[in-house]
């Protein structure tokens, strides 16, 4: 039997496929369709300090092999999350990665402090790359200093209790330098990629279709961008664990991200079309790895980077 387990920093997971933040709500909703115990972990919707309504509707437009969303981090706030959603996940034996998002460096630190003493969390994903904020200047992951400051604050607040995964945006000129910055500030791993900033114009109203005008593109349309981003970062920092995501809807897609350098893979938009996608992808991946002669998932991580083998002929 192939060993499918993986690690992200000090966190160990029996399975390599995770939900993607914001694409599984708080986990409960998917439990009717998949067994949460059988997947890597539930990555929760990014939670903020206060409850939030998100952006007005329309919040979504389907595009060719993708969709553009502008949910805007609607959620109940951290206190309600810790009182209701987290205990439910723990009771139902799901592994949990909590995603946090803030409007200021301080908000991230406050959130991290609240998570520090909460039981049942495997890691913290720090979403510094949500494109759906009022002010594009507030996307921390587009600014090397801002992203370092956030991670620095989170690291101090957590005091080394939980691994930190920094979630980055592909919408930057030099992804590797942003990645290096957050790792230097104490992130244990990276989540790549968040959605790609995009827009759809409705040709009947002849205005932007989304009420928030811009949104984030996700789904199969962005998979090659994810593969590129993961490959670039793994190439520069081969020891840094990467949680890969972006357009994965089959075991083949997941394998591509793993070969590029991802140690685990999150599935987002694919669950909208198929709520049992996470489990199906996990099974397909196992089959594909076995068919290629791997005896463990970790052997395949970054395998696309191997040095040209000496010709045997």
């Amino acid at each position, binding site marked *: 039997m192939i060993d499918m387990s993986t690690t992200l920093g000090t966190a160990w997971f029996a399975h390599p496929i995770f939900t993607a933040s914001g694409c599984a709500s708080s986990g409960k909703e998917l439990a*009717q369709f998949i067994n949460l115990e059988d997947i890597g972990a539930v990555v929760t919707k990014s939670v903020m300090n206060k*409850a939030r309504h998100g952006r007005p*509707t329309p919040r979504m437009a389907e595009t060719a092999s993708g969709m553009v*969303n502008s949910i805007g981090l609607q959620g109940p706030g951290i206190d309600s999350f810790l009182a209701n959603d987290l205990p439910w996940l723990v009771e139902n034996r799901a592994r949990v990665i909590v995603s946090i998002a803030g409007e200021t460096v301080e908000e991230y630190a406050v959130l991290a402090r609240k998570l520090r003493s909460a039981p049942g969390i495997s890691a913290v994903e720090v979403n510094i790359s949500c494109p759906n904020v009022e002010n594009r200047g507030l996307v921390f992951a587009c600014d090397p200093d801002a992203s370092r400051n956030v991670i620095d604050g989170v690291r101090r607040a957590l005091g080394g209790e939980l691994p930190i995964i920094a979630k980055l945006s592909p919408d930057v000129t030099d992804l590797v330098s942003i990645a290096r910055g957050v790792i230097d500030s104490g992130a244990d791993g990276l989540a790549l990629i968040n959605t790609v900033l995009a827009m759809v114009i409705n040709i009947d109203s002849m205005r932007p279709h989304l009420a928030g005008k811009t949104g984030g593109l996700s789904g199969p349309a962005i998979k090659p961008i994810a593969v590129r981003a993961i490959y670039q970062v793994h190439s520069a920092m081969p020891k840094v664990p990467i949680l890969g995501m972006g357009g994965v809807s089959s075991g083949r897609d997941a394998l591509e991200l793993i070969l590029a350098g991802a140690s685990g893979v999150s599935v987002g938009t694919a669950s909208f079309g198929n709520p049992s996608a996470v489990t199906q992808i996990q099974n397909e991946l196992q089959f594909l790895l076995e068919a290629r002669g791997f005896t463990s998932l970790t052997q395949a991580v970054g395998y696309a980077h191997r040095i040209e083998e000496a010709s045997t002929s």
Partner: protein
Amino acid sequence: MSAINKFAEQIRPIVVSNKRVGQYHQIILNVGDVVTNCRPGNFIAINVGGESTRMILRRAFAISRVSTSGVLGGTMELIVAPHGQGSRWLCSLQEGAEIDAITPLGSAFGIPTSPVNALLVGGGYGSAPLFGLAEVLKSRGCRVDMYLGASTGSKIYAPMEGKRAVNTLRIYTEDGSMGEIGRVTAPIAQLIAEGAVDVIYSCGPMGMLSAISSIVKGSDVVHQCAVEESMACGVGICMTCVIPVADEFGVTTMKRSCIDGPVMDGSLVQWNLVGKIPEVTP
């Protein structure tokens, strides 16, 4: 196990028949045993476009009626308007085609425990689930009146056999091409004033549902409406389908129309805030 959508199953039904009826298609699916858990108001989410499609999201359709009898076992009727790419694909399917579907999803119309006077109001193809509802209400001894409205006659969906379940059926079109000229909401205030209605069930465009809610306001008539907001997942995981709804304390939050709806209490939906965001944070 969570209680959300606890009867939902991912199934692969076959298209048993696909007929054009006016501007709509009547599609019958053999869905098997899930019919026993389908209630009027519930919906089905269907994958469209086939294997190599560019359409990645499911399409949601209200369940028009289900039947447990017949040689095929459980069947489900859908009334589909071929408007977008996805629904056109569905309407183009031949008998015998297999599809990928999830059902039953969402909330259902509440059925009164004792007989009441029910008014069912449908706009356009929104009338589809009302016929199944009418049958259930009738079997509970309710008086069932139905008003259907559309811009023009070919957009009215009112099957012959469906009329058996209602006491009266009135049709309104804006161009007068069928039934009476005018809007379906016009006569409702009068009915309420006469005390001739206890519960209104409505299904159709948001403007119509909102108009009924304002007419009902101040009376003790209950208004259950099936809302329409575009959905990406249909199962509560994406947060795209939200509308502003107040709770019993008057606090408004953005509720998911796929799992907290589609059937909602019309008096709690904050119609003036649809497409906006409530001022105060919850």
